[in-house]
């Protein structure tokens, strides 16, 4: 109990005094905290900070696993199956979290309310499953719209576009405009107006956000799938039309994030809806040909006037079986602390603490880094106003697996959009029924 008081006191201090390293993370002398962290070049800089926590608390951190999230997901499911949840802290993700059921503990009460209050409220909401705060968001991501600036500044193109489409060529505000511009810019096989991720949960997500932006919904209030509505068909038709018009590369049904990212970086794609996390890669001359030519705006609007804002957050969770939850909570507080979020924000990742947004933007501006400052501002707007997650239910991945092959079938022309969605709807309805929803 005393431990907890120290912790609450300590974390309360973070809220008050911003130079946070001075703060007290408690003392856990001789304790070894076992953690599973998402690995990869992008995530390592944060882990380089861990010795500071070890020095402050006297505890040791043992990284028992470090993998990308899909591999980590498999591993955690194996752990549940084998009953080997003998570790305390795990990397998590808002899209994966609902599947894990009760293995992660509710952080309300473990993490000081003052700490939680420092986070963007929407992020905390997305981290909550069935009323339990099962994860503390580390950094988030949301669909944003990237484009090559030079294309829109070209007077010849402006004139030609205006003649054909009757309105001025400008970064798109709606998805209908995206379609026009994608077709306008495309010159296959050398140059394409647009691209989209076309397989796995990625295409489900793209369809889903379009559905929401067009005023539809995945499920009704009784959890009956309703994505085969008129809005659903229109949403899928958008992708089908672009594919048929050759306004996107012919390979998109096999694209995931790496392909779209590398494609936009190659300079032969005009517009790209992608994760904010790519922005620093796109603007790095060593990796990308569009460096210096990248524009970023919030995702365009669907027919219902809503922006496509599919979002997810990387996060950390504490296992229910953890033998020292206060130590784990202290570690989580440390990893998501102001200082550490600043470390990640400088690398181009989107923070989850309100103040880090402000200060990171200020820091970029002070350093004369206009690109980063501008993108950060755009991300901040989309993160606080447009972002929404997939339905936070355990069956999401299963429903997605029933849906995406059908979406592909429509895109490559094997089926009509309506037929594809009707078939997927039947499968999804069965999954929901099997799971006991209705």
């Amino acid at each position: 109990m005393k431990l907890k008081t120290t912790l609450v006191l300590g974390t309360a201090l973070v809220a008050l005094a911003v130079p946070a390293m001075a703060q007290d993370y408690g003392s856990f002398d001789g304790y070894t905290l076992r953690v599973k962290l998402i690995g990869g070049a992008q995530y390592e800089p944060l882990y380089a900070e861990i010795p500071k926590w070890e020095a402050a608390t006297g505890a040791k951190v043992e990284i028992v696993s470090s993998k990308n999230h899909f591999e980590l997901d498999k591993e955690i499911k194996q752990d549940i199956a084998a009953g080997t949840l003998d570790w305390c802290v795990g990397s998590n993700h808002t899209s994966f979290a609902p599947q894990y059921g009760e293995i992660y503990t509710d952080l309300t009460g473990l993490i000081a309310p003052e700490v939680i209050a420092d986070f963007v409220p929407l992020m905390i909401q997305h981290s909550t499953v069935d009323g339990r705060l099962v994860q503390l968001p580390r950094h988030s991501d949301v669909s944003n719209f990237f484009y090559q600036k030079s294309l829109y500044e070209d007077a010849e193109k402006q004139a030609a576009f205006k003649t054909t489409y009757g309105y001025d060529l400008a970064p798109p505000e709606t998805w209908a405009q995206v379609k026009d511009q994608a077709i306008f810019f495309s010159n296959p096989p050398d140059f394409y107006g647009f691209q989209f991720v076309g397989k796995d949960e990625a295409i489900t997500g793209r369809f889903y956000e379009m559905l929401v932006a067009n005023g539809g919904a995945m499920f009704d209030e009784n959890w009956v799938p309703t994505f085969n509505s008129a809005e659903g068909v229109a949403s899928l038709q958008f992708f089908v039309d672009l594919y048929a018009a050759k306004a996107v590369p012919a390979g998109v049904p096999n694209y995931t994030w790496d392909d779209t990212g590398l494609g936009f970086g190659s300079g032969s794609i005009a517009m790209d809806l992608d994760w904010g996390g790519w922005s620093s890669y796109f603007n790095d001359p060593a990796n990308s040909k569009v460096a210096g030519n990248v524009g970023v705006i919030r995702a365009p609007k669907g027919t219902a006037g809503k922006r496509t804002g599919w979002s997810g957050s990387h996060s950390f969770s504490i296992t229910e079986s953890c033998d020292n939850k206060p130590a784990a909570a202290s570690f989580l507080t440390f990893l998501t602390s102001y200082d550490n979020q600043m470390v990640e924000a400088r690398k181009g990742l989107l923070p989850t603490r309100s103040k880090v947004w402000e200060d990171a933007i200020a820091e970029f501006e002070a350093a004369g880094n206009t690109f980063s400052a501008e993108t950060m501002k755009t991300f901040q707007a989309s993160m606080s106003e447009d972002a929404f997650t997939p339905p936070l239910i355990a069956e999401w991945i299963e429903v997605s697996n029933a849906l995406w092959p059908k979406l592909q079938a429509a895109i490559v022309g094997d089926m009509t959009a309506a037929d594809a969605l009707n078939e997927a709807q039947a499968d999804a309805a069965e999954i929901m029924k099997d799971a006991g929803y209705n």
Partner: protein
Amino acid sequence: MTVTVQSRASKQAKRIALWFTTFALMLVMCVPGLWVVLSAFRPNREILAKPPVWIPQELSLVNFGKVFGFGAEQVGIPVGSYFANSLIIALTSTIIALIIGIGGGYAFARYRFRFKGGLFLGLMLFRAVPGIALSLPVFMMWSKLGLVDTKLGLIIVYVSLNVPFTIWLIDGFFRQIPQALSEAAQVDGCTRWQAFWKIEFPLAKSGIAAAGVFAFLTSWNEFALASQLTRSTDSKTLPVGLLDFTAQFTIDWAGMCAMAVIIIIPALILTFIVQKHLIAGLTFGGVKG
């Protein structure tokens, strides 16, 4: 038979032509692999480009910096421990598989016993079980035994992957060594063990070397089971480490290529060294059952 100087020269020319044709064909076959090797020295911007960049504009070791953590990229990946793990696991499992395989191969080649054919076929068929069917049950067992994320756990699995092939190869090889040799030695007063060790084992060296190369390559490159059974730097192997260059949404293909080169080189050197024995060792008893 009169061989004129001219026809000898044309024969020579033919031989040279054949050599170059074969060499060219081999190179063409290697192109997809050489592309990976070349990409290891080029920036992402150039490898995956539109319009394509055919003649490398810049070659550098930057990608290797991402692996080892030198230069501008300060945080590398723990390639040192991956390499050590891979080496320990591949070598140990190869040696154990060879010892077990020599015993088993010798038994099949030199003894008559009941259920011999069935046992032989049974061992082979067990090997045919796809890894994907084994991954979860093996994981559950290993976790009960505390073998998950240990080198030993992976070594045991790899031994079982390699034993059937090793037995088959070595069995065939022993068969080719006339039994009379060891019988003569036994008449001269050697024990069966001495006869084996002094006469048959040295003759079977090529077969053992060939089996060793195959076992080593299998263990060195195996991914599916390693990705399930390893977790941290205690046991992660190089092929699993390749995925360190993929993040949730991004992939650093050039970095991955650099890592690939690090995986390929030791395997290539080993293959070249053992090459002399390799062909001689892969006879499987040839036409003799």
